[in-house]
């Protein structure tokens, strides 16, 4: 079984062969999809007159600040627009998909961050209210497995439920890692728009877990998060973590056969 993280736009981000590729693998070993979609959330926030706020962490990572209103729009766009559009696209191609957010059947439970450390406008470190983001604690693995057993393909939005039943924005890459780890996927695949981790302008074909942990701090933000998610998945027992370019033909089966 493989857990695949995709972006928010199937049409823009993926090679046309991808859905047939997913179908083949869903039928042979079972697929769980986890999606992102931050860009579309930002677009709808703007259309609704809600200015998105971004903050920068002490180590320089810029990210969305999720206040309550943003968390609600985030949930609406992620689980109502992006998730259902992906499910529709899969259904259209004969894959019996089912869209879920982490709130449904408590598929993803997370601890709400009480505080966030940011760099403020004076360039100094500051602790602010954590907003509605969270660290994943639990995944309802037995429910996800029961869906796979019924021949369904789960499509999961990066929204978690907090202990107080709040909607939490969680990172899609790390959600995929946790789902893969807790459900017991042997593989996790992060689909992106580059060929993989580049070092000295060359794709790194393979890293051990120890190498990945050592190398991680030296990598730029987008890829760094995928390496972090990969190490987390491997720590939870996933055998192989793959990073592949979704714009290549049959991106999933070629990543599985290390054909890159």
């Amino acid at each position: 079984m493989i857990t695949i993280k995709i972006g928010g736009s199937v049409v823009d981000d993926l090679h046309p062969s991808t859905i047939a590729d997913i179908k083949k693998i869903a039928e042979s070993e079972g697929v769980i999809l986890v999606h992102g979609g931050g860009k579309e959330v930002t677009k709808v926030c703007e259309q609704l007159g809600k200015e998105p706020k971004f903050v920068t962490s002490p180590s320089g990572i810029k990210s969305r600040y999720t206040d309550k209103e943003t968390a609600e729009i985030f949930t609406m766009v992620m689980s109502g627009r992006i998730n259902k559009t992906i499910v529709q696209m899969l259904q259209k191609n004969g894959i019996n998909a089912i869209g879920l957010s982490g709130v449904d059947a408590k598929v993803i439970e997370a601890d709400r961050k009480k505080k966030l450390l940011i760099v403020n406008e004076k360039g100094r470190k500051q602790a602010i209210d954590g907003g509605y983001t969270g660290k994943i604690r639990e995944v309802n693995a037995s429910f996800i497995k029961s869906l796979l057993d019924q021949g369904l393909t789960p499509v999961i939005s990066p929204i978690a439920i907090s202990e107080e039943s709040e909607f939490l924005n969680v990172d899609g890459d790390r959600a995929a890692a946790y789902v893969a780890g807790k459900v017991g996927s042997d593989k996790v695949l992060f689909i992106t728009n580059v060929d993989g981790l580049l070092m000295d302008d060359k794709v790194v074909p393979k890293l051990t877990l120890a190498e990945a942990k050592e190398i991680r701090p030296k990598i730029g933000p987008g890829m760094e998060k995928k390496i972090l998610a990969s190490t987390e998945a491997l720590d939870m027992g996933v055998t192989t973590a793959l990073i592949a370019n979704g714009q290549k033909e049959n991106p999933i089966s070629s990543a599985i056969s290390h054909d890159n």
Partner: protein
Amino acid sequence: MNCPECDATLNIPDDAAVGEIVSCPDCGADFEIAKKDGSNVELKQAESVGEDWGE
């Protein structure tokens, strides 16, 4: 103001705001500004918060 841990002198900017983190130059401990009333500053132990960001 001095470090509650090692008593070294802390360098707190005049325009520092509540929530900002002050690090001790000697022992490296982090403190969060809990209250501020003019030059009267109250510190508390900064919680160590890992970075964990959403989408």
